[in-house]
């Protein structure tokens, strides 16, 4: 009897309360961003706020389902769930529906479902299962490659469907692998490549090459040990240069013009004022409008449903990817900071709980959840405020969208369920 009680009430209420706060606040902002004139019917299914309310209701059903399933189910069925997710991604090439140039949706009646959203938690489960396998050792190249393959498969399929933003989310598993034993050198290499890429685009190959040479040889001479070959740093330099040229080549020849322009705007590469003006009207339009909306909010915000830029629909996609600009305009610095703090607390709480898991499966899964939220949070809000180039991914729980809401709900509550079960594991 006591044990029953403990089991029922051992869900982590901090996560659940943050979840409810975010969903509720998101709903208010979707209402603001999507309504036209007076709202007469809150369940108007032709409006975003009406649909979102239904999605929220269905989320509750999902939560009850997830929490009532035996915790071991997720570990046992992880592989099958992953296979189903991959199949559904593959199916898009045959049955998929194009929306905004991306072939990421299944149309069911008037509803659309985006399998790439669900592939996230499926991948997280698969990764957790693979890493927690007693035979897996992430310090070996072989297992590293296998783990990477688990991620690259869905990432590649999504990229082929022209949804670069969602592909980027899979980079979050990098943090998981690192936590579970991936060598530090990968982190160093990863950051170095990122910096190298930015330098190559911003300052060109010559300056980047000189800078790289300076640092590489500097490190070499400072940390020289016996018989260290001079060829190693030279090799590193050559690889760096090849990579930098590759980035340039990729930027110039492979990226689509709108992607080029987004990066160009972010790095302030364009010098021709006429072209810059054109870009501001096209690629930077969203960003400029969204920054203006956020600025217009001031400290206190203009109040719920009072934002002039929100009401005037100045920011396109304001109920989905750009929802944070609504928060900024109507709730001001107070409300926006509140959302940021909620996310930070949520992610830290998940990390904290993950670290306390007894089973490695639960820990890896929890870490994956935290990493995925972190990436969404960073990219979405960073983009809306102009800190990083425009990448179209939603803000979890706040942005409008059924697939997104459900997938994040499932992602989170599987972890809540796993966490509540740790008492039964030893």
């Amino acid at each position, binding site marked *: 009897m006591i044990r029953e009680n403990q089991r029922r009430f051992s869900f982590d209420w901090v996560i659940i309360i943050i979840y409810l706060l975010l969903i509720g606040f998101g709903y208010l902002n979707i209402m603001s961003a999507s309504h036209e004139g007076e709202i007469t019917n809150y369940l108007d299914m032709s409006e975003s706020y009406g649909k979102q309310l239904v999605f929220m209701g269905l989320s509750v059903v999902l939560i009850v389902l997830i929490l009532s399933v035996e915790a071991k189910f997720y570990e046992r069925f992880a592989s099958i769930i992953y296979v189903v997710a991959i199949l559904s991604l593959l199916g898009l090439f045959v049955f998929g529906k194009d929306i905004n140039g991306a072939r990421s949706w299944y149309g069911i009646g008037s509803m659309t479902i985006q399998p790439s959203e669900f592939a996230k938690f499926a991948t997280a489960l698969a990764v957790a299962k693979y890493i927690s396998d007693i035979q897996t050792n992430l310090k070996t190249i072989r297992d590293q490659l296998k783990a990477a393959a688990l991620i690259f498969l869905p990432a590649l399929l999504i990229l082929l469907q022209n949804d670069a933003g969602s592909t980027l989310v899979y980079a979050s598993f990098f*943090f998981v692998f690192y936590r579970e034993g991936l060598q530090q050198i990968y982190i160093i290499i990863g950051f170095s490549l990122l910096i190298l890429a930015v330098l190559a685009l911003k300052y060109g190959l010559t300056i980047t090459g000189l800078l790289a040479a300076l640092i590489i040889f500097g490190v070499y001479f400072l940390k020289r040990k016996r018989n260290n070959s001079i060829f190693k740093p030279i090799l590193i330099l050559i690889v760096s240069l090849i990579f930098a040229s590759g980035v340039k080549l990729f930027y110039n020849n492979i990226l689509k013009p709108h992607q080029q322009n987004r990066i160009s705007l972010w790095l302030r590469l364009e010098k021709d004022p006429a072209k810059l003006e054109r870009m501001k009207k096209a690629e930077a339009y969203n960003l400029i409008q969204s920054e203006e909306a956020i600025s217009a909010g001031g400290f206190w915000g203009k109040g719920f449903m009072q934002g002039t830029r929100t009401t005037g629909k100045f920011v*396109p996609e304001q109920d989905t990817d750009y929802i944070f600009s609504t928060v900024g305009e109507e709730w001001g610095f107070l409300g926006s900071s509140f959302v940021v703090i909620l996310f*930070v607390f949520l*992610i830290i709480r998940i990390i904290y709980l993950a670290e306390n898991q007894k089973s490695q499966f639960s820990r890896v899964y929890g870490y994956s959840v935290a990493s995925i939220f*972190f990436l969404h949070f960073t990219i979405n809000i960073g983009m809306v405020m102009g*800190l990083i180039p425009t990448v179209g991914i939603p803000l979890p729980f706040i942005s409008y969208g059924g697939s997104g809401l459900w997938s994040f709900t499932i992602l989170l509550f599987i972890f809540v369920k796993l966490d509540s079960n740790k008492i039964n594991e030893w």
Partner: protein
Amino acid sequence: MRKLLLLTLVVFVGLAFIARLYYLQVYDASSYNPLDDSAVRKVFTYPKRGYVYDRNGELLVANQPSYDVMVIPREVEPLDTLEFCSLLKITKEDFIKTYTKAKAYSPRLPYVFLSNLSKDDYAFLQEKMRKYDGFYIQKRSIRTYRKTIGANVLGDIGEVNQSIIDKDAYYGKGDLIGKQGIEKTYEKILRGVKGTKFIQKDRFNRDLGPFKDGKYDTIAKPGKDITITIDSKLQEYGELLMTNKRGGIIAIEPSSGEILAMISGPTYNPNLLVGRNRSKNFNKLYNDSLAQPLFDRGLQAMYPPGSPFKTLNALIGLQEGVVTPQDKFRCNLGFKYGNQRMGCHVHRSPADMNLGIYESCNAYFGNVYLKIMDKYQSRVEAMDKWSAHVRSFGLGDYLNNDLSVGQPGKIPTSQTYNRAYGEGKWYPTFTVSNAIGQGEVLTTPIQLANMAAAIGNRGYYYTPHIIKEIEDDTIPSKFTTPKYTTIDKKHFEPVVQGMFDVYNKGTAKMLKVPGIEICGKTGTAENFAIIDSVKTQLTDHSIFVAFAPKDNPKIAIAVFIENGYFGSRFAGKIASLMIEKYLRNEITRTDLENFVLRYSLEHEYKKPYSGEPFGINRETILDPISEEEFEELQRKKRRIERVND
């Protein structure tokens, strides 16, 4: 260590976001004002501009509707340009030029395509306008002048220029503002306050309805009507007399400082500066550098006042106790001082004060002036004492009144001479020209009229002003507080008597108006022009100041006629006529009137530009206008009389 990477990044990103939010929303943002919100459209409603009435309640300035063709370039659909141009009576080049300008201004915002359609054009166009998408007609209110007089007094309104928009947040592009005259000085009272309607718009610039249910909207406050001190009948008559002449007439009511008439010749029809041809007409007036119709001679023309200034020296002499009315000075066709000589004309000698004034004896005033200068041990003290007396009559500085233009004139002080000759290196004989209103003295006609008012009042004046009443408001107290001169009241009688005798037996005895006791003083001012880089003397300016009646004067006047020769030739006649017109509203001295109307000075004004040698003063002749022109002026005069009765 491995556990910390993600944790650190989360905290770092969170802090970075809050910092960015702080920058965007708190540091970089100012307080919210719907006027600055580009998501809110501001629609202004312009209030009725206040009417202007004259002192007798006659409406001078009112409003009339005007219709502008507006264009919003991005809403324009392909149209039959030829047909459209012929409707608007413009050429295709005009169309393309204006349209390009409108597009450059903004594709989304309304632009004035063609301003001030006539009422007939409007009625005709209104029907056809629907055919042309992106074009529409907007109603505005512009001025209409009921009488074609007082262009220099009333002024005009026009589109506000950018430098004012930058300074004063009230004005926006295309708003109208007073440009000259009372439209300028009383702009804030006349214009009222425009109302603002805030309309929420969407990103396609479409209206979504009132912003916050009109919480920020303001209602337009209508402009207040004003009554000005001008007597429009007197003004109209003065302008008629000024025909074919250049100069200024200023008439003031001494008991209040109210300006009864303020004439500048040549003048123009104020309706020229209304509506669509405003800028064309304005440029024409502005560029007329010979006649300078925009130069208000009554307020801006600075000249040596000549003989009228002598009355002040008489007053100062009495106040300083260096002379009594009975003291006599010898005049031997002039007067010698040092080794120089100041000429005079033939009259009885020796002269006391009365004779000195009515015969305008230079020797008398030269002696009085030197006595004033000799009273004090120090020349500097004497000069400054004298200067202060003169300045107490409102000379030598701006009158600080409510007219949009003005000039300070010039009254010398010891510093003036110290600067010119060096510290202490000058003597009273250097400055004796000041005795007869020449030398370093410069005045404007309004200052002279005010001086006459102060003499008529026996020692005080009210700042001459143009405002009489403001609807629901009072006029500034500086116009209702008397300003006292430094001369005691008792010293005025001999001088007033002298000015009265100017009419009885002096230089103006031919100008007497039976039944009206006028006190006056003639004057002439030498003047020069640079012709082919040679300083050449032109015919003297004719000057006259007067007030009437002698006791409790109702009108004080200064008349100044460019190149009119001696004072009583033109200026004196005009002054007498104006006084009679104002006091009696009819003219008995029709001989004077006919003279003034018949003789033109245009030939005099052409002389410097003729390229031929010419004679001045004594060699000048009276040049009558043709009989037809004279008849025309007579008809005009009768029409004015008829309308005004």
